């Protein structure tokens, strides 16, 4: 994926980036501008523009920062004193556009005209259901992209080069595709690398993660979420009902995970809801946590709700397809109110690529408390019961990578420190249900694999040992949370062809 790196370094790009000064009015999506963040200026890309409280507001993605830090910023935080980067047209149309049309330097009137004509159109066809999307933020965003997005599209579909500032109504449906393509292009992701069709087909048969820029480059749609005792700020887009865009807060029932856009509704729901724990069988219980196993096919609503919720915090998760082929292992803490969902991981009933985890998430309100390690540990415990090696589905998120690395390191170091004089990588994998590749990755990452006196050796480095000892001290003080394999009452579920087809 080299192109990506290129696009991040403007100096090294083969295609020179168009730069120039901009005003608030000329800003549009795709423009990269310097934005003040934590008293620092960061380069950010505008993903959406929407008027908020009478002022335009800009949804920006900071370069080299995770999308969960994307945010709406007021115009004051934009640095218009520095040059902005105009979005690069697609490589394919670069040549063409130079001949057919001038570079998309924005004439001041153009977007405004567009907007006006657009909004008129909106009103005219607002009755159609598809239009409802364009009321939304992504819809707004798409409208703003129109100026350059249309151009791309025209060249892509090979229609008349420019048909004036007023677009045809049919273009409406292309908008979203446009903005996604634009986003993909902005991300420097070559879309030829992995076609949308290929990915959808792959997702249909297995997996729950997407690499597709069009699916993940979306403007966050919920402002705040209330769940249990907490208010949480969502990290990413999740396809909750479109009506919630207007809600300041979305209320999520802690037990059934149903969602309500209004506190009255939520309170009414709470008077009726009788669930007190995830609707499945408890398969593990110790002093701190319980695990519930839930079949996506049998508990469709609950699992859908769970996926909607977790999508708020998992960038690469896709909800394109339904939850049927997954089992959900939900970790809860208990008190007299009920079993509070802390985190979960989903797992394919049959993974073609030997993944033992599809998605894994500790809810943000419970993060940094060691629950993630328990979840990972539990997923490997299930794999051990199954007598298989497992690995999490890729791509991992940044937090996922760190979590897994920490777990792998601890597991492997513990295994190596049990006094053995030698060991091979496959045995370590078998003992921990880790794939050989993950063992290798960990050893290598910790610089523990070396070549010494004509052969490879595993070196327990001082740093690794020290770190482990520090960890143990900490555990002594804080108490150690581990999964006790004896408390797992579980048989690997078997799904026959008939049970998959008929739900027997």
């Amino acid at each position: 994926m080299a192109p990506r790196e290129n696009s991040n370094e403007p100096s090294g790009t083969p295609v020179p980036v168009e730069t120039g000064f901009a005003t608030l009015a000329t800003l549009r999506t795709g423009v990269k501008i310097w934005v003040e963040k934590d008293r620092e200026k960061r380069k950010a890309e505008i993903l959406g523009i929407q008027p908020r409280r009478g002022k335009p507001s800009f949804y920006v993605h900071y370069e080299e920062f995770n999308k969960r830090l994307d945010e709406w910023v007021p115009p004051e935080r934009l640095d218009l004193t520095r040059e902005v980067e105009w979005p690069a047209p697609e490589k394919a149309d670069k040549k063409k556009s130079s001949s057919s049309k001038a570079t998309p330097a924005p004439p001041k009137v153009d977007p405004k005209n567009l907007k006006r004509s657009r909004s008129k159109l909106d009103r005219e066809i607002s009755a159609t259901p598809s239009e409802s999307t364009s009321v939304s933020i992504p819809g707004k965003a798409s409208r703003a992209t129109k100026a350059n997005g249309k151009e791309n599209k025209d060249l892509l579909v090979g229609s008349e080069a420019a048909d004036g500032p007023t677009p045809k109504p049919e273009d409406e449906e292309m908008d979203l595709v446009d903005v996604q393509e634009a986003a993909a292009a902005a991300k420097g992701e070559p879309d030829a690398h992995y076609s949308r069709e290929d990915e959808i087909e792959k997702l249909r048969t297995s997996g729950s993660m997407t690499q597709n820029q069009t699916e993940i480059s979306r403007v966050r749609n919920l402002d705040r979420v209330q769940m249990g005792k907490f208010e949480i700020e969502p990290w990413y887009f999740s396809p909750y009902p479109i009506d919630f865009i207007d809600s300041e807060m979305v209320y999520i029932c802690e037990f059934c995970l149903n969602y309500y856009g209004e506190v009255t509704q939520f309170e009414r729901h709470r008077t009726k809801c009788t669930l007190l724990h995830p609707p499945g069988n408890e398969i593990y219980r110790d002093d701190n946590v319980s695990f519930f196993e839930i079949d996506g096919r049998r508990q469709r609503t609950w699992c859908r709700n769970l996926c909607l919720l977790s999508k708020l915090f998992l960038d690469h998760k896709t909800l394109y397809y339904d939850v049927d082929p997954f089992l959900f292992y939900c970790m809860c803490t208990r008190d007299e109110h009920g079993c509070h969902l802390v985190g979960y991981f989903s797992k394919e009933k049959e993974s073609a690529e030997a993944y033992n985890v599809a998605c894994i998430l500790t809810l943000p309100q419970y993060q940094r408390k060691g629950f993630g390690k328990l979840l990972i540990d539990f997923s490997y415990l299930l794999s051990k019961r199954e007598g298989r090696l497992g690995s999490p589905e890729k791509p991992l998120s940044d937090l996922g990578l760190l979590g897994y690395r920490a777990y792998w390191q601890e597991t492997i170091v513990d295994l190596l420190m049990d006094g053995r004089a030698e060991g091979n990588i496959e045995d370590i994998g078998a003992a921990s249900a880790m794939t050989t590749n993950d063992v290798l990755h960990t050893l290598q990452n910790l610089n523990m694999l070396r070549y010494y006196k004509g052969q490879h050796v595993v070196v327990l480095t001082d740093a690794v040992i020290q770190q482990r000892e520090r960890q143990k001290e900490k555990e002594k003080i804080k108490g150690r949370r581990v999964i006790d394999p004896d408390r797992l009452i579980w048989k690997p579920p078997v799904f026959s062809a008939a049970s998959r087809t008929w739900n027997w």
Partner: protein
Amino acid sequence: MTQRVTGQRFRQRKLSTKQNLPILRENEVEPLPDDEASRHIPKVETGVEKGEEIEHHLQAVIASQAVRTAAGKSENVYIPTPEAVDSQLQYPNLYPRKFTQPATYIRFSSTVEDSIGCLYCMNSDDAAFLKVYNQKRGKNIHCSEDEFEQVMNFFEEMSQTKQPYATVDNTPVLPYEDFESEFDETISELARRFAKDIYVHWKNQRLLKGNRMLMPTLKFETNLDTDDSDPYVCFRRREVRQVRKTRGRDAQVTEKIRKLRKELEEARFLMAQVKKREMAQRDQLAIDKQIFEQRAQVKELKRKLSIKADDEELLITQKPPPKPNKIKIDVPNRGVPGLVRPQVSRPDGRILDSDLIYLEDQKAKKDQMIDGFIEENLMKHQKWNVGWVDQTWRPITPPLETAVAKSEFRAVHISSESQLLTPPPSLPEENTGEQGDPMEVDQSEKQIEPRRSARIRYATPPEDIPFQEQDRFRRRLGRGGRIMMDRRGVKRPLDGVEEVECRVADRYKFSGEESEDDQIYPIDWTDNLHIRYRIMIERQGEKQHAQQAAAANRRAIENHNRSASGHLLPPSGSG
């Protein structure tokens, strides 16, 4: 370049994952130049998407970890995430302390829909409406929130089933009448009273929303082209493979399921019917009781007013016990009617008992047939005999007038009664009897066909021979207690035809005391026709008194016939 140098020094082997590697501490290995440390070990990808791998915070944490491992310092660097804060809502109010942990692991299979009651939850608009509405009702019964939601939910669900594409094709909101006719058990009687008023509110809300569902719903696929690019469309179905050609096994499975379902439904129907019946019975009992009591009252009243009447009518009308239904089995008419078969076994080999045949039916039928046959024959005979004088009449006809005393007959010596009683004899005996003994004749006859003896041995006729051809014997009691043997189907051997013929001709030569000029008519007694005829006549005799009409005529001929059919001993010339 260093790599090349080291490569020249010693060739590095590839790392094998199966091979045991020594585990060493850091002080046991020589420190190596950094870039040589991990050379020739395949690079393993992190699994994080390349584009995100370079993200600032991740790199910072990885770097800090590297620093930590190197320097042994404990400085925690985190990837910053948006924060979660405590909510303003009163948690204990919303989530009451209801949970008690069971001793065993929880097993649970109810769905969300099962557990959350009425799906519709009222929003602030609804609450405002309800408040105003209840105020307006004043002292009348107020509509509770639950009832309100019930009604709203009913409207929502009903319009969803009736207009599933309301969002797409702009259908008008359903009129109230459509709902009223559909009220079912999901909407309680109490709530129905408010339905009409709530409908107005519901309709307004729907109109505000463009006739879409009031509760926010997820967007599912609509099979339109816009689906694919719409980020809100989620949880699409995975069409499980292509539509398969129906395989035999699949068809079987579906068939089985269908059958199961049908049977279950039938069982359910049966149960419903039983329930209905029991209910009816209960009602009937109640009514009976009422009748009884009322009758008792009437009785009392009667007594009080001293009305003397039949009290019988006041008794509970006792139904006659249900008569068991007579099961009538239609006996199919088998075989040639009119033929009496010795019912030992039947040509089809079935045991007689296997068919329930009513004797009286059978008899009546037989009698009818026989009567007809005889009547016919009698007429025929009369026709034939017109203008003829029957010379055979006198000599053969037995004396009709008196029952002859036994003593008048010659005593018959039966050498071994048992043999005679069980025809046919198991073995043809050596004939040593005197000539002139009537039984001897019979026996001697048998003696002349010794080759058939094997056949005669059978106590029961063989089944492989057709009925008509089987040999049959019958013992009869004649007048005066004489024992007569009838046989049938016994064929004479062809070679002895002449001899037998003359013997037969002379059979009765010396058997009688009558004069020489009496004519002797040789008759083959074993002839089928004769046997049949005799049988008929016997039956006729039974029927005689019943058939008065043809009596006179018949009697004459009967006598004639009897003489024709004959006896073993022709009557003496006394007649």
